């Protein structure tokens, strides 16, 4: 990334470099969006649908999205399934092993909020966004592969707003809702439900 960072920063400073940078951004965003390789972080039920998604019937290879078991080769981590306290360090570590730029799709209610395991349990993390920056949430228990397909296509739109210079956004109109700050404080959520 160092090379790209330097290139991007240099272009940003050079007069007239902005034009090149913008064109480069457009090319890169297109190429990144069309080749989102998945890190299948399947832990529970949703993993079955994640497998189904890249298999014969749904075939995500059509969108240029293939599952790679090695985090080093992946662009988007699909967290499919319940994340427990024992599992969370491993997930975080795998996320850190992925090279930038990287994205996260939280697939299924468990990864979004804990889902059915929200109440009464001592070991489940309520939503993977407690420790990972999630880009796209898919609800469902489990979501159908079509929903994951939609998520990949939505993620493409979001990728289109990125720039190769860190901290710089391409101003594009997006229909995606911007995610708020990560949901913290489980007790507050519980109070809300009680009322």
């Amino acid at each position, binding site marked *: 990334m160092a090379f790209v960072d330097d290139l991007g920063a240099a272009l940003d400073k050079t007069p007239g470099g902005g034009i090149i940078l913008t064109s480069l951004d457009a090319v890169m965003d297109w190429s990144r969006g*069309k080749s989102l390789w998945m890190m299948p972080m399947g832990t529970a039920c949703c993993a079955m649908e994640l497998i189904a998604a890249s298999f014969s019937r749904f075939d995500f290879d059509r969108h240029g999205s293939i599952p790679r078991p090695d985090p080093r080769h992946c662009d988007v981590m699909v967290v499919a399934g319940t994340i427990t306290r024992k599992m969370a360090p491993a997930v975080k570590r795998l996320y850190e092993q992925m090279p*930038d730029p990287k994205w996260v799709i939280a697939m299924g209610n468990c990864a979004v909020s804990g889902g059915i395991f929200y109440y009464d349990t001592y070991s489940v993390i309520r939503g993977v966004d407690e420790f990972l920056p999630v880009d796209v949430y898919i609800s469902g228990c489990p979501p159908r592969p079509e929903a994951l397909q939609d998520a990949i296509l939505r993620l493409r739109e979001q990728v289109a707003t990125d720039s190769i210079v860190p901290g710089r956004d391409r101003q594009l109109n997006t229909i995606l809702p911007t995610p708020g700050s990560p949901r913290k404080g489980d007790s507050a959520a519980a109070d809300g439900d009680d009322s």
Partner: protein
Amino acid sequence: MTLLWGFLWGVAGMTVIAVGAILGVWWERKVAARIQMRYGPQQIGPFGSLQMIADVPKLLFKEDIIPDSADKPIFKYAPLFVFGPIAVSMVVIPFSAGWAPLNTSVGVLFFLAVPSIEVIAILLSAWASHNTLSTLGGIRATAQMISYEVPRSLAVLAIVLLAGSLRPLDVVDAWRWWWLPLTFIAFLIYFIASIAEMNRGPFDIPEAESELVAGYFADYSGMRWASFMMAEYGGMISASLFGAALFLGAGWPFTGALGVVALIVKTIALMTIVMWVKWTLPRLRQDHLMSFCWKVLTPLALVQLVIVGVVLPWL
């Protein structure tokens, strides 16, 4: 002057391999998809043929991770040394009767020897990653590639014996169609040993996806990983080209430009068979792999040599 030409041919070889790898990856994804009742890439270009146009810039601009515990200089440059020998080996391939980029009298030997340097680079990259799975993959790769050199060379020797020359162009000139049935065993051995040399299924033990995750290149990301992939596809292309040129008579039955087309068609057919085999068969285990090499392929290659040796005086 010779050096300059050599350099130019090297660059040309690299370009051929890079382009070939890009098309090869697409072709493989399509072939695999057809075998698996899927469609494969569809969205970019006709039949998704430009999918790699999206993948390559993405990999180029990925973060280049170098693990903290890795042996940094070796880790950084090992991919080059994996890719280099394969690209260099392209220069001796006789593309058509009377035309090879580099017409040398030890061409066959050169082709067998130079790509084998790859094994050192693989071992280095595996070792430098400082990762148990990578190291296992590297060691497996070393054992496998060194062993399979033997039947592969013996198989080529049968052809060399018939042609009476180590110069690839002489071999192509001397080639007659009845060599095909005569050296069929040698061709099969060459083909199987080449699959093992390029670490492809069912001999993809060093990178066994379900065991070692990705084997020796498990810690490489971005372009460095892509150069491993390029080396793999380059190896596939060069081995198929060489096999088609030596065993299948290069441009036979055509000559000239049509002959080059024929050679390319044969190469693509061979590559497709390599992919077909990979996506159909399960993976071998190391001990099976070794016993297959030493107990089946090597004796068979010797038998082939004997057959050729018996026939030779009667020609």
